[in-house]
C-alpha cells in the first residue's frame, strides 16, 4: 500500500503545481483569448487531473474536471470565445479542484462538498454554445494535429466513468512519453504525463526540465544543512589542531578538507534558494480576481522572477506581499472612469520588480494609481488620535506617509472585503522587519505609489558582529549595525553624560542614548574597563548605543532557533554555534530597544515622528571627510560614496594616461586627490592605497586619499575660495578647513577624458 501512497502524494504535488500554472494561464488567456497553445496546455492539465482522479477513484474530482474539460474543448475548438464570465467559472473550477486536492491530502478522500452547482454552471455555458456542440467538438478535434489527438477526442467520446480504467491511464501516458505504460504499471502513468505537461508549460515547449531536476524533501535539505553545519565545526577544530602540527601531508589534507567544506556549505545553502517567482506565480490570479471584484482594470507586470531568496525568507514575505498587492488594487488604482477622467489609460499598471542591490534583495511594488493622499492620511491619523493636529501640520509629506505604518491606522474609507481585514500596514512592516528587512514608501499624488521592500538573501546565515558582555559571547546581526565607537582613557569616563538617569553619549553633536548590555541582561562585569565600546545600532529608525565589554570580530553565523521554551525572551533572536563548538546567543536589537523603552509603544512612535520633524528642518548632509596631501582635508558627499577600498599599489595599471585598477570586472579610473587639489603629496609611498569609490549613476571613479577621517553631518554652508573646477567650495568641518569635492563634475570629466581617448 506504501507504493500507492507515494503515487498519490506525487499526484498531489504535481497537481498543485499544475494548478498554479493553470491560474496564470487562465488569467493570461483573458487578454489573449485566441492563444490556442495556452488553451491546449490548460486542457492538458485538467485532462491529466481528471484521468488521475479516475484512476484513484475520486468521483467528485472527476465529475468537476470532466465538466471543465468539456467546456475547454469548446473554447479550444473556437466554438466559444473566452469571456471574463467564462473565465470566472473556469477559475471557480480550479478552486474547486484545489479544495478537493486539499481534502484528499488531509483525509484521503475528495471530501463531501457538493459541486453540482458548479458543474451545472459549467454545463449551462457549454449549452449556450449550441446544442450540437458536443458533436462538432468531436468532429473538429479529429482533424487537428496528431500530437494532441488522443486527449482532444477522448473526453467527448468517453463517458466520465470510464476514465478510471488503467487503459485510459496508459493512453494518457502516450501523449507525455513513448514508453509503454503497461510495462511500468499503469499506476505511474498519470503522474508522468503530468510532469511532462508541467515542464512543457514552464519552459515553453521543451521537456528538458524534467531531466535536470529532481524533487527533494525539504526536511532532507534541512538535515543536510545541519550536517554541513556540524562538518564546518569539525573542520574548524581540525584547523585549530593542525596549527600545532608540522606533518606536511596532514596539513595538506586539512587544507583540502577546509576548502571542500566551504564549497559544500555554499552549495547546500544554494539548494535552499528559491526564485521569487514561486510566490509571484499566484499573484496574477489574485490581482485578476480583485480587479474584477473592485471594478478595476489592472495590468500586472513582473520583473525579476528569477531573483533567488532563501526558502524561509520567501515564505515569510508571502503574506505581506499579497497584502500590499491587495492594497494597491483596492486603494491605489482608480476605477476606469476615474482614470479616463484624469487622462490616464483606463487600465492601471501594477509592477513588481525584484533585483539585487548591495547584498540584499529589493522588491518594488509600484502602481500608477491615485497615490497616497497625504492630507487624508494626516486627517485620519488625527481623527484616530494617533497624532495631534499641530504635529500633523508640521509633518513633511514623507513623514505623513509613514503614518500608515502606525498600528491602528487604515486608510480605507470603507472597510471592504478586500483590504481592511484588520491586517494593517503595521503588520506588514512588522513581518518584514522580523526577518531583518525594511519597507519604504514613495508616493506622488495622482501618479502612483511605490513600496520598496529590502530583504536579506538568507535567514539561515547572516553576517554578525561578535561582542562580549559579562563574560558571554553574543552575536549582533549586522543589518542593525550603524557604527562602532571606542572611547579610551579619560574619554571613557567623561564621554558619558547623564540626562537624569539615562546615560547618553554625544555622537557628532547628537545625543545617543546608551544601553549597558550587561545591566540589561543582569550580567556582571567585574573589572573597571579602561575603554568603552559602543555599538551604535538602529531599530525602527531609532538609534542607540549598546555598551559592551569587548568587540571580538565579525563572522558569518548560522542562525538556529531557540525553541519554544525560550520564546518569551525577546532580547534574543536565536543562537548560533561558534568555531570552538560553544553556543552563543544572537541579540534581537529590536527586542532590546523595546525592552529599554526606546521603541514599541505608540508614544514612542510619535516621539520618533516628532524627532524627525525637528530634524528635517536642519536639513543636513552626510559627508565623508578624508585627508589628501599635506594638511589638506576634503569632504565627499556620502550619497556618492559606493565603497571604501584598499588597493595594493602594484595593482595599478595605466590606460590612456590614466591610472586604473581592475575592479569587479571593470576598469576603475583612479584620481589622486592630492594632485587634484594641487596639494603637497604627503611624502610616503605606501604599499596600499586608500580609495574612495564614488559612483554617480553608472559612472565610477576611485579617489585615492591618504586617510579616511570621519563621517560627519554637515549643514550646507560654504564659501567659494578660488576657482578650482572640481571643488564646489570650502567649509569648516570639525575645526578644519575642508574642500568640498564636486563629485558629479569630476565624474563627468573622467568620462569625457575616457570618451575622447576612445574616439581617438
Amino acid at each position: 500500500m506504501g507504493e500507492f501512497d507515494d503515487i498519490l502524494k506525487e499526484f498531489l504535488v504535481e497537481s498543485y503545481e499544475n494548478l498554479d500554472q493553470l491560474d496564470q494561464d487562465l488569467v493570461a488567456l483573458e487578454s489573449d483569448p485566441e492563444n490556442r497553445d495556452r488553451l491546449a496546455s490548460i486542457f492538458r492539465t485538467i485532462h491529466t487531473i481528471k484521468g488521475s482522479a479516475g484512476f484513484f477513484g475520486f468521483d467528485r474530482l472527476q465529475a468537476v474536471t470532466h465538466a471543465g474539460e468539456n467546456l475547454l474543448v469548446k473554447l479550444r475548438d473556437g466554438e466559444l470565445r473566452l469571456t471574463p464570465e467564462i473565465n470566472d467559472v473556469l477559475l471557480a473550477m480550479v478552486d474547486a479542484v484545489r479544495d478537493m486536492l486539499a481534502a484528499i491530502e488531509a483525509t484521503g478522500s475528495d471530501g463531501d462538498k457538493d459541486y453540482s452547482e458548479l458543474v451545472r454552471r459549467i454545463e449551462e455555458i457549454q449549452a449556450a454554445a449550441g446544442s450540437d456542440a458536443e458533436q462538432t467538438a468531436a468532429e473538429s478535434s479529429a482533424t487537428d494535429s496528431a500530437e494532441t489527438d488522443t486527449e482532444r477526442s477522448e473526453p467527448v467520446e468517453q463517458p466520465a466513468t470510464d476514465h478510471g480504467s488503467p487503459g485510459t491511464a496508459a493512453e494518457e501516458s502516450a501523449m507525455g512519453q513513448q514508453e509503454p505504460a503497461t510495462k511500468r504499471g499503469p499506476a505511474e502513468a498519470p503522474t508522468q504525463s503530468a510532469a511532462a505537461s508541467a515542464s512543457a508549460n514552464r519552459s515553453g515547449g521543451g521537456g528538458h526540465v524534467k531531466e535536470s531536476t529532481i524533487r527533494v524533501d525539504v526536511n532532507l535539505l534541512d538535515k543536510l544543512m545541519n550536517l554541513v553545519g556540524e562538518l564546518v565545526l569539525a573542520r574548524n577544530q581540525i584547523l585549530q589542531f593542525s596549527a600545532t602540527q608540522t606533518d606536511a601531508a596532514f596539513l595538506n589534507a586539512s587544507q583540502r578538507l577546509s576548502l571542500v567544506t566551504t564549497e559544500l556549505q555554499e552549495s547546500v545553502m544554494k539548494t535552499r534558494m528559491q526564485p521569487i517567482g514561486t510566490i509571484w506565480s499566484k499573484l496574477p490570479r489574485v490581482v485578476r480576481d480583485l480587479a474584477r471584484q473592485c471594478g478595476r482594470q489592472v495590468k500586472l507586470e513582473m520583473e525579476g522572477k528569477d531573483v533567488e531568496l532563501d526558502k524561509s525568507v520567501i515564505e515569510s514575505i508571502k503574506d505581506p506581499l499579497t497584502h500590499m498587492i491587495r492594497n494597491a488594487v483596492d486603494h491605489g488604482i482608480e476605477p476606469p472612469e476615474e482614470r479616463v477622467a484624469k487622462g490616464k489609460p483606463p487600465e492601471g499598471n501594477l509592477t513588481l520588480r525584484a533585483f539585487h542591490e548591495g547584498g540584499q534583495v529589493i522588491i518594488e511594488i509600484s502602481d500608477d494609481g491615485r497615490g497616497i493622499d497625504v492630507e487624508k492620511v494626516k486627517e485620519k491619523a488625527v481623527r484616530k488620535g494617533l497624532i495631534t493636529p499641530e504635529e500633523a501640520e508640521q509633518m513633511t509629506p514623507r513623514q505623513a506617509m509613514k503614518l500608515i505604518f502606525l498600528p491602528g491606522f487604515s486608510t480605507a474609507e470603507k472597510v471592504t472585503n478586500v483590504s481592511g481585514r484588520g491586517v494593517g500596514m503595521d503588520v506588514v512592516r512588522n513581518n518584514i522587519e522580523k526577518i531583518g528587512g525594511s519597507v519604504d514608501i514613495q508616493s506622488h499624488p495622482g501618479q502612483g505609489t511605490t513600496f520598496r521592500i529590502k530583504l536579506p538573501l538568507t535567514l539561515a546565515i547572516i553576517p554578525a558582529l561578535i561582542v562580549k558582555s559579562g563574560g558571554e559571547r553574543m552575536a549582533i546581526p549586522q543589518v542593525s549595525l550603524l557604527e562602532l565607537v571606542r572611547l579610551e582613557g579619560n574619554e571613557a569616563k567623561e564621554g558619558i553624560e547623564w540626562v537624569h538617569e539615562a546615560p547618553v553619549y554625544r555622537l557628532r553633536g547628537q545625543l545617543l542614548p546608551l544601553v549597558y548590555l550587561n545591566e540589561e541582561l543582569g550580567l556582571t562585569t567585574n573589572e573597571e574597563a579602561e575603554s568603552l565600546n559602543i555599538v551604535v545600532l538602529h531599530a525602527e529608525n531609532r538609534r542607540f548605543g549598546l555598551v559592551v565589554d569587548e568587540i571580538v570580530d565579525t563572522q558569518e553565523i548560522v542562525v538556529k532557533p531557540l525553541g519554544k521554551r525560550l520564546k518569551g525572551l525577546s532580547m534574543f533572536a536565536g543562537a548560533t554555534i561558534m568555531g570552538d563548538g560553544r553556543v552563543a546567543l544572537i541579540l534581537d536589537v529590536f527586542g532590546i530597544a523595546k525592552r529599554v523603552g526606546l521603541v514599541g509603544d505608540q508614544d514612542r512612535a510619535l516621539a520618533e515622528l516628532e524627532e524627525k520633524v525637528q530634524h528635517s528642518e536642519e536639513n543636513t548632509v552626510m559627508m565623508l571627510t578624508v585627508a589628501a596631501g599635506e594638511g589638506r582635508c576634503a569632504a565627499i558627499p556620502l550619497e556618492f560614496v559606493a565603497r571604501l577600498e584598499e588597493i595594493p599599489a602594484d595593482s595599478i595599471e595605466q590606460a590612456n594616461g590614466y591610472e586604473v585598477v581592475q575592479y569587479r570586472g571593470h576598469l576603475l579610473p583612479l584620481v589622486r586627490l592630492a594632485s587634484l587639489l594641487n596639494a603637497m603629496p604627503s611624502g610616503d609611498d605606501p604599499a596600499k592605497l586608500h580609495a574612495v569609490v564614488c559612483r554617480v549613476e553608472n559612472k565610477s571613479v576611485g579617489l585615492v586619499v591618504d586617510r579616511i577621517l570621519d563621517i560627519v553631518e554637515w549643514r550646507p554652508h560654504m564659501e567659494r575660495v578660488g576657482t578650482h573646477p572640481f571643488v564646489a567650495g570650502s567649509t569648516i568641518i570639525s575645526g578644519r578647513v575642508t574642500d568640498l569635492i564636486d563629485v558629479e563634475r569630476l565624474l563627468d570629466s573622467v568620462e569625457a577624458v575616457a570618451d575622447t581617448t576612445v574616439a581617438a
Partner: protein
Amino acid sequence: MSLHTYCTFYIDNFFFGVEVEKVQEIVRYQEMTRVPLAPEVVRGLINLRGQIVVAIDLRRQLGLPDRTDDHKPMNVIVRTADGPVSLLVDDIGDVVEVDPDQFDSPPDTLQGIARELIRGVYKFEGRLLLVLDIERATAVSAAA
C-alpha cells in the same frame, strides 16, 4: 507480562526514571552557554552535534539545593514535542525493567512542585523509583 523499561538516574537522594523510549541519549557534562533573563531552571544551552538544546536543571525544577561546583551534572537528552531537551541530573543509574503491577500513584501527601512532576512510583526492593513526567519536567514557565 509486558515489562516496562526505564532509564534511571539520581538527583540528590532520589531515584528517578523515565521511559527508555523517551530518552534520546546520555551525554556527559558539556560546557553550557547561560541564557540571561531566562527562568532559573534553564541552566544554559548546549551544542548537541550542531543542534542547540536547552539544559534544564532538575534540581532547580524540583526545588532542591544546587550541586556543588565540583560535581558536574550529566545530560539526559529526552525527546519532547518541541525537539530534544537536556535534563541535568547528578548521576546515571541502570536501565531497569519493571513490572507494571508494582506501579503506584504518588502518595497524597506529596505536595508542591514535585507532585506535578512525579507521575507515580515503582516499588523496588528497598527503594522507590519515581517516574518523571517528561513534558512537565521540561516545561519552562514564562520568562521573567
